[in-house]
């Protein structure tokens, strides 16, 4: 069955970089996860047209590509906000009160796992970022914040302009 390509093909050099990632794996289905990593890095998230393109190029059924993309937590099928907070909910952070930080963020920005309606902030939780010595830890836009006090996120929220 022919696979419909996305209506508006992706034009910039991201397309080329993605192509390169696929050719590095000889367009083999074995490289699917690596290709999805690259695609997410380039586009921020994995849209359905993007997944279809990848399925087509790697000669895989779209169901397999969507199946893999939705299986792993690391892959996001929805666009992310301008800023991202990842609250670690590993055991050490959990016993150090990380849930309170999630509540703060949910109260002020968005429910965990979602993005605020204005597209400004995404709130996520992680299963352990391996920084247990720094519990509770929060990753804000890629930076690890250590031993975050209950009001420790206020400053960050102010910096990115959350009311």
């Amino acid at each position, binding site marked *: 069955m022919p696979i419909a390509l996305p209506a508006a093909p992706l034009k910039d050099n991201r397309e080329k970089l993605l192509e390169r990632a696929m050719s590095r794996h000889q367009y*083999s*289905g*074995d*490289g*699917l*996860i*690596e290709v*999805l*990593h690259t695609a997410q890095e380039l586009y921020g998230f994995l849209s359905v047209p993007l997944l279809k393109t990848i399925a087509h190029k790697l000669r895989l059924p779209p169901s*397999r590509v969507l*199946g*893999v993309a939705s*299986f*792993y*937590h*690391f*892959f996001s099928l929805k666009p992310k906000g301008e800023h991202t907070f990842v609250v670690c*909910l*590993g*055991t*050490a952070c*959990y*016993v*150090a009160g990380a849930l309170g930080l999630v509540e703060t963020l949910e109260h002020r920005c968005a429910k965990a796992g979602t993005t605020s309606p204005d597209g400004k902030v995404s709130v996520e939780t*992680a*299963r*352990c*970022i*391996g*920084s*247990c*010595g*720094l*519990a509770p*830890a929060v990753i804000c836009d890629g*930076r*690890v*914040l*250590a031993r975050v006090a209950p009001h420790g996120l206020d400053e960050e929220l102010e910096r990115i302009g959350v009311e």
Partner: protein
Amino acid sequence: MTVEELSEMQAQETERQQKLQNRLLCCTAAGCVSCGADRLRHALADAVAAQGRSAEVEVCGTGCMGLCSRGPLVLSAADRRLYGNLTPEDAPALASPNALDRQHLAACVIDLDGPFFARQHKIVLANSGRVDPEKLPDYIAAGGYQALAKALTEMTPRGVVEQIRESGLRGRGGAGYPTGLKWELVAKQPPAKKFVVCNADEGDPGAFMDRSVLEGDPHRVLEGMAIAGYAVGAQQGYIYVRGEYGLAIQRLQNAIKQAEREHLLGNRILETGFQFRIDLRMGAGAFVCGEETALIASIEGKRGQPRQRPPYPPESGLWNAPTLINNVETFANIAPIVVNGGAWFASIGTASSKGTKVFALAGKIANTGLVEVPMGVTLRTILFDIGGGIPGGTFKAAQTGGPSGGCIPEQFLDLPVDYESLIKIGSFMGSGGLIVMDDSSCMVDVARFFMEFCMDESCGKCIPCRTGTVQMHDILLRITKGEAGPEDLAMLQSYSTLLRETSLCGLGQGAPNPVMSTLKYFPQEYEAHIREHRCPAGRCQLTGRLEEATA
């Protein structure tokens, strides 16, 4: 590079380092970096340059020094002094040749002969905090790749397997399968395509040992894998590393490139006929991929779902070829065993558990960080002598083994820690996360937390795990909300048995462990929630109505 050139490089680099007046080693592991280690390191380099001593004093980054709670850490090699809790403003004093300038830093000095360091025995972490993980000559100066050279030039593949067997090393990923036996199984498969896989998908919440080893001493893992490849007859290795471990990935990529350039990996390693390549595969956040058959599926680009065993991976693994899968810490033990011999390693530890174990200390403990102790030391030594005890609270339980492990109560503090004794008391060695809880933690809530984890991470392939974890979580949630009745405890017991006996892989089989161990050692907490409608730790909000619950 030939074996002679390797020794030459070792001598040259050692001589260069000895000629220096001082080396300032900055811990640049993830813990210290998030406390500003990068800025401190730059400030030190600037201070050294400003004093015009760049030729005599070297500032370099290292892997984890262990005492994460005091970061950022700097070790001054010349006078063997370790400083902690530093700021970039301290840089000029630290770099100064005049000891008087450092007087005001006395409070930052950490006693290297204190129990935290003195009670440890470092094999896996021997280089961590001493060598720069981004510089190959540094690793070589510390004796790196000598084990590979010895294996390739003085030993037969069989001989290597024999040494590993003699050492008594057991898999450090948690289950403790004898490493030598596993290697032998792969080695005796008919010569054809074989693979060596390093499991660096450290998913247990509360565990960061593998991360620290990869970040602090990546070449050690590569060397261990190459030796394994020689011993079992494989030419290709994969490291399956968690996608979340950005720094570890970067350092591994860098290390692989350096090793390939010097012919320590790739074709004609050390000018011998042996070839071995290592590629990275990034995980994508699925806990179940720590299970070996799920990990294999993930490397093949599929959903990480386990399959029925046998056949075990040593017979049929990656792309149906014989595959050796070991954990990061296991591979990190290989080079010292090859250099010093299996008998040396077997002399450390207990009768059935040899060598050392790295633990990640976290939770309610003074010295959070990374420690390595000989097998068989007591939990009390680890937590109170090395860990410094529980600040402002009383010890309630130590959790080992992550979501497949259990909570160890106070009565077992004097138990020697090894594989067997932990299983005997309903816990599990696991990969080495050790989380300390004091009386502010509710054990029912902890059990619920782990069950939620297993519920989310269940891959959905087998029904006992997929639906059993949901049912168990539901009961635990109702207990913490004060909505459960006494019959729910019996139900929990029966689900536990069901999951343990009928799940396909270790995730489902181990999922009931936290529940069973807390039920066994802290039954009064469950009773208090159900019958008295209160949470002894004051953590749970019991909003359900008492009459409803006990009716």
